[in-house]
């Protein structure tokens, strides 16, 4: 194990008086912004500094928005830390990179300008990472550089002369291994030291003719309100940016300055678009030549050998399918004993509490409303934990980046950018972070097409619905040893959403969002052992979120649905059997009346009013389908491990006497849930990410409408075709 010397960083070879306003040092809070290339461990470092638990992963694009945290210095000084999305440069091609640029240039809506910028660089790939660092050094803000993954650099034979690098960059540099918390204390001290130092300046000189050509543009930028210290960097950046429209939208006069500077550069024999990369990489080559001694072992590593299979044209997709089958089978097989245990505890607790309450409406509310509704959802906690452990392992090892690579060919065929696959994968957890993750996509049409299809990926809220129906109606028949029909059915539901998402994206890209298909450049991180701590944190977070939803939204809706099914009270004949009395009350209640009002809409799909009303309630949150069924059937204190499933299987149509729910209806219902958009948070985030205002609402309305149409149409086809083929019984 490599350890890092926790000594204070070496003194800096910087001369001259401090440039910063001394009053800034006296300000109560030190503001630090963290920036770096994607997948350099910024968020791991952020978590180590602040003690927070932001999501991390072994692929680019995990952080897509600014996230704030804080810590206290050795003497109790407060520090606010802002984790910015990963960026290869400050060229701001995508919305997440724009967020980082706005903060660093002080253009952020909240006017949050950092006192110190912490640049996180990957020690193994110093040359590439120094491009962004060289831009940040010119912003007129004190900088600290964290040489992260220093242990991996040493293990792979990359020796960095840190004192010499400090001399070259003119800023404090601290080697760190963020995942083990090494170098964090020296880094905290370095941040305070940096805040007292003068801001660094450009470390190389432009050719005299280029500097003269850029001077008028720099004056334009300063006149436009940019800090003088940042004008040099911004002038170079604007000339190299492929999307100046984004930067110049609000400053029309600047366009003339840029055009004039470009013309002057051309006259002097330079290519304006290449100037920045040439001068920066020229300087970087000199710096790394003097500070890095690389004896990288070129022999094939274990990661390379795994990649030979994982990325193989034939074995790669096969391995992907095998991995997915195993994940979904594990969700079913491993969860069962834990689910049974939870069921037992919930039923026993309900009975215990029920025995303490007097008979009446309060007891009924607690048992038939709260325990039946929330309990029927909470029992799926083990499945959520297993699914997110599996997804976490795939993310942390780096396999997800390989999956994105494998999918690139398919993505391009449907007209989507390869980067769209990561947001779609995130959609398996929840559509909201999935839609947020589209910020890494530069092209607005590609981004919008991805936003429109991300909710088709089966999120964790659908899991209780699938599990309830599969558990009740799909036999656990073994297909091959260790793989059952139930696991495969679950996989089919997930695949169905994915395949249809790709089809819908292809339609959008050929109609409303027509545009060229761009190639994807994907950085494949080396395979790593997952950090047990990070994995445990992310799984715990997911479980907490699930329980929080159960304890808030689902609890509230269960209470309301209980009231709707309980009132007004019927005057049923008390001599009738209890089941008939309950049925009579249900029919007489507000819920029953609403259900019968909805029934004509869902009857063509083979559903009765109980399913209809459960679907209607689940437009607030999908899991509510399960809790509503639990409330309707009042399974709060029933000791049967699978009480709700047993009730669904036993339910008879009161008119025909046939089974009310059949495997065909269950499949149709699952297909409905694969496609329907039933999540208020997703609609809200689509509105915002699609542009907000009328445009945002229009896209959200289109998304909701097409998904509902798709859900209804597909469920009808399943039921109609199944009935025609005689599978309806």
């Amino acid at each position: 194990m490599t350890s890092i010397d926790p000594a204070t960083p070496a003194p800096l070879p910087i001369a001259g008086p401090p440039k910063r306003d001394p009053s800034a040092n006296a300000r109560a809070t030190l503001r630090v912004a963290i920036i770096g290339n994607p997948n350099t461990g910024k968020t791991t470092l952020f978590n180590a500094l602040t003690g927070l638990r932001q999501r991390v992963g072994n692929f680019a694009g995990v952080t897509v928005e600014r996230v704030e945290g804080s810590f206290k210095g050795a003497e109790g000084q407060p520090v606010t830390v802002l984790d910015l999305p990963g960026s290869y440069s400050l060229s701001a091609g995508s919305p997440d990179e724009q967020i980082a640029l706005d903060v660093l240039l002080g253009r952020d809506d909240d006017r949050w300008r950092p006192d110190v910028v912490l640049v996180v660089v990957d020690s193994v790939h110093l040359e590439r990472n120094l491009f962004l660092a060289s831009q940040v050094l010119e912003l007129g803000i004190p900088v600290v550089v964290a040489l992260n993954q220093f242990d991996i650099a040493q293990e792979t034979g990359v020796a960095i002369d840190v004192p010499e690098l400090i001399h070259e960059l003119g800023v404090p540099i601290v080697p760190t291994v963020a995942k083990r918390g090494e170098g964090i204390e020296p880094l905290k001290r370095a941040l305070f030291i940096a805040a007292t130092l003068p801001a660094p300046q450009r470390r190389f000189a432009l050719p005299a003719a280029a500097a003269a050509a850029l001077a008028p543009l720099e004056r334009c930028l300063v006149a436009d309100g940019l800090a003088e210290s940042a004008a040099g960097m911004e002038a170079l950046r604007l000339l190299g940016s492929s999307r100046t429209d984004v930067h110049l939208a609000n400053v029309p006069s600047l366009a003339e300055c840029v055009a004039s500077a470009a013309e002057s550069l051309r006259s002097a024999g330079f290519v304006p678009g290449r100037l920045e990369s040439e001068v920066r990489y020229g300087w970087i080559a000199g710096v790394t030549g003097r500070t890095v001694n690389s004896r990288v072992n070129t022999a094939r590593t274990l990661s390379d050998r795994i990649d030979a299979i994982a990325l193989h044209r034939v074995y790669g997709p096969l391995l992907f399918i095998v991995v997915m089958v195993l994940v979904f089978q594990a969700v079913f097989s491993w969860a069962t004993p834990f689910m049974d245990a939870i069921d037992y505890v919930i039923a026993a607790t309900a009975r215990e509490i029920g025995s303490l309450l007097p008979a009446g409406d309060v007891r009924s509310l607690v048992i038939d409303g709260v325990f039946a509704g929330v309990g029927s959802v909470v029992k799926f906690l083990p499945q959520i934990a297993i699914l997110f452990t599996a997804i976490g392992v795939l993310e942390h090892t780096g396999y997800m980046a390989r999956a994105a690579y494998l999918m690139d060919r398919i993505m391009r065929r449907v007209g989507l950018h390869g980067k769209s696959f990561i947001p779609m994968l995130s959609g398996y957890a929840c559509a909201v972070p999935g839609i947020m993750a589209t910020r890494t996509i530069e092209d607005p049409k590609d981004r919008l097409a991805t936003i429109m299809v991300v909710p088709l990926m089966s999120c964790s809220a659908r899991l209780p619905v699938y599990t309830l129906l599969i558990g009740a109606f799909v036999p656990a028949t073994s297909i091959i040893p260790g793989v059952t029909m139930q696991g495969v059915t679950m996989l089919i539901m997930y695949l169905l959403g994915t395949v249809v998402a790709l089809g819908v994206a292809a339609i959008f890209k050929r109609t409303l969002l027509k545009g060229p298909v761009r190639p994807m450049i994907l950085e494949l991180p080396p395979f790593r052992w997952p950090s047990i701590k990070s994995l445990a944190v992310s799984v715990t977070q997911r479980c907490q979120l699930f329980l929080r939803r159960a304890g808030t939204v689902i609890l509230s809706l269960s209470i309301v649905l209980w009231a709707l099914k309980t009132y007004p009270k019927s005057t049923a004949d008390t001599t009738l059997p209890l089941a008939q009395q309950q049925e009579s009350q249900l029919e007489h209640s507000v819920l029953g009346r609403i259900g019968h009002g909805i029934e004509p809409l869902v009857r063509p799909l083979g559903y009765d009013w109980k399913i209809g009303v459960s679907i209607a309630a689940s437009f607030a949150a999908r899991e509510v389908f399960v809790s509503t069924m639990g409330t309707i059937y009042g399974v709060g204190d029933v000791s049967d491990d699978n009480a709700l499933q047993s009730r669904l299987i036993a339910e008879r149509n009161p008119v025909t006497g046939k089974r009310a729910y059949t495997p065909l209806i269950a499949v149709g219902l699952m297909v409905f849930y694969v496609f329907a958009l039933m999540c208020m948070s997703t609609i809200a985030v689509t509105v915002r990410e699609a542009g907000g205002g009328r445009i945002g609402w229009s896209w959200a309305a289109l998304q909701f409408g097409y998904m509902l149409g798709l859900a209804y149409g597909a469920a009808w086809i399943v039921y109609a075709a199944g009935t025609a083929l005689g599978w309806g019984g």
Partner: protein
Amino acid sequence: MQLLIVGSIVALALVFIGRRAWRTVVAARKPKAGCGHDCGCGPT
């Protein structure tokens, strides 16, 4: 008495649902807001 208790609990649940729905709509208007506290994007 039982009806009063039940009525209060149901009213509280309705207020919670209404407030939650309103906050979701408001969040849609904020251009740089996070994704809310029930989707795993924000710090815990």
